């Protein structure tokens, strides 16, 4: 942002009322109301940290740092370690990103470079529909339709074929389960395609037309133009968009809670059951009391901190690249 005082009309009109002695009460009241609403965002974010930290002190003081980052989550033994959930969250969101990104970027390119403006609108609507289908409906569909199908028809074959293959055998070999890291990751991928697509589109739309026309004038095909003119400009912004998607995948709760299989373990088997931060909170919070409840709120705080970090970086990257492109 430039610090040059731009003679914005909105700015100059406020204090510059030489004729009025003072601004009417209603006018000032409205200004205060608006400022208060704007600052509410910051207040809520701070309150989230304060209130969840306060309610989870019981967990932090009982387990200590080493206990928190242990693998063991055993409510019966009154022991609560977060590592298995951290692992599950990381694995499912990485799977989601790996699956979702090629599709999202391809659709974003399709919408901005291939399909002309007006005709792109129906495609945008359809992608938006994906975002409006509630998480719990994806979970229900995944549980009733997708999981049995994968478990009976797909995963056993995959497991058999890849059994013994060096790396893939470890990732996808038997034993296989319909509810697994991979199933949850794929459904999360479907759910984050809309956000990555729309942010990538915003970024790609800021590529200057003159660069694209220049590429065409040199005789480039459309794909060569995308590689040579669009990609170098929007690379950074797309990385940011992907990270926003990563944040979403990390926090998506209900679909993952239903599909991940609910067993806190760390394993390289992607087709095995697992657990993640949001899903353990959703599944166990109802019956939890005492330290377990504090621990679940603490997991929420950890998740919040993780997603905030990812989002801060992501939004920073997107903001910087779009601003640079608009040539501020």
């Amino acid at each position, binding site marked *: 942002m430039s610090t040059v005082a*731009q003679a*914005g*009309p*909105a700015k100059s*009109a*406020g204090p510059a009322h030489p*004729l009025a002695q003072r601004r*009417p009460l*209603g*006018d000032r009241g*409205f200004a205060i109301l*608006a400022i208060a*609403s*704007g*600052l509410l*965002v910051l207040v*809520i*974010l701070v*309150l*989230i940290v304060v*209130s*969840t930290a306060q309610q989870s002190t019981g967990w932090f003081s009982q387990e200590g740092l080493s206990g928190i980052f242990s693998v063991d989550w055993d409510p019966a033994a009154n022991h609560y370690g977060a590592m298995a959930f951290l692992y599950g969250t990381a694995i499912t969101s990485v799977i989601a990103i790996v699956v979702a990104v090629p599709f999202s970027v*391809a659709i974003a390119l*399709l919408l901005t470079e*291939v399909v002309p403006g007006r005709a792109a609108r129906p*495609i945008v*609507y*359809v992608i*938006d*529909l*994906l975002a*409006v*289908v*509630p*998480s*719990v*409906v994806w*979970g229900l*569909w995944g549980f*009733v339709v997708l999981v049995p199908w994968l478990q009976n028809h797909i995963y056993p074959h995959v497991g058999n074929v890849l059994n013994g293959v060096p790396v893939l055998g470890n990732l996808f070999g038997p034993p296989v389960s319909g509810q697994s890291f991979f199933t949850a990751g794929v459904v999360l991928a*479907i759910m984050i395609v809309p956000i990555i697509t729309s942010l990538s589109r915003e970024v790609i739309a800021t590529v200057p037309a003159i660069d694209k026309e220049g590429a065409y004038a040199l005789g*480039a*095909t*459309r*794909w*060569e133009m995308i590689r040579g003119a669009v990609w170098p400009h929007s690379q950074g912004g797309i990385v940011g968009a992907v990270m926003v998607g990563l*944040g979403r995948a*990390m*926090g998506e709760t*209900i679909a993952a809670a239903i599909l991940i299989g609910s067993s806190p373990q760390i394993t390289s088997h992607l087709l095995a059951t697992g657990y993640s931060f*949001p899903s353990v*909170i*959703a599944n166990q919070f*109802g019956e939890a009391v005492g330290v377990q409840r504090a621990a679940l*709120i603490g997991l929420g705080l950890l*998740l919040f901190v993780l*997603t*905030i970090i990812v*989002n801060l970086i992501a*939004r920073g990257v997107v903001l910087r690249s779009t601003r640079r492109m608009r040539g501020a």
Partner: protein
Amino acid sequence: MAVPSASPQVPDLREPPGWRRTKNQLMTILMWAAFVITLVPLVLVLYTVIQKGSAAISWQFLTSHTIPPNVMPLSFPGGMGPAVLGTLEITGFAALIAIPLGILGAVYINEYGGKSVLANFTSFMADVMTGVPSIVMGLFIYTIWVLHFGYSGLAGSFALACLMLPIIIKSTQEMLKLVPDSLRQGSYALGATKSRVTLTVVLPAAVSGIVSGALLAVARAAGETAPILFTIFTVEATNTNLFSGANTTLSAQIFVNATSSYTGAEQRAWGAALTLIAIAFLLMIIARTVTARFTRYTR
């Protein structure tokens, strides 16, 4: 690239030769393929929900009482009356809180804040806040409200309002940016105060975009489950009082019934899913028509 041209006298300027052209077409096909493959899960999910949901749904289903997932139904597997009511109440009240606050917040960022550091920071943090997981919002309202005042529909409304707020701020902000400065300058020249300019000139000029952005936020919030679970304490009975006592919503009912293996539970879940998707899509379609209609008039 030195590609030997077929006829050196008249180079063909229209089509790049051979392999480059093939590659270009291949990539275009891949982009379309990506879109079509993304459609597959959407079509499948909608097909299943409509097929299984329409078998479950009836007027009786939408109005009669819910049966707990672990109770064997005698003849009729129970309805979603309390959940439909709860969803409308809780989401409606959340919208009532979040829409005015969101619009005012955007007014601050765009009209009052100008280029100030605080306004820019607020705008940035609103972006970040859209990424806060919904379950964290649920925990937040649980710790700050439910622990002190108990479970209620109101707590659910607060959680949904927290989720909607940043989305509404961002969409409203985009719309306010599109209002031409000449409108503001004209009103100031007539001697109007800033609040009057904002309320009677700037906001009306952007109203269609603001409404559609708000409706999309409401549509997404209506389907949220995670923040609802900890704030309303899902029950089966009808609770018309939003401000006290446990409540229920369609999303919570789907979650409770989805993984239950008792008779009728799955059918209830599909029926509730169809109802919920119908509500969400209806809101989205209204949002789109509002935008389409008003943009036609203003341009």
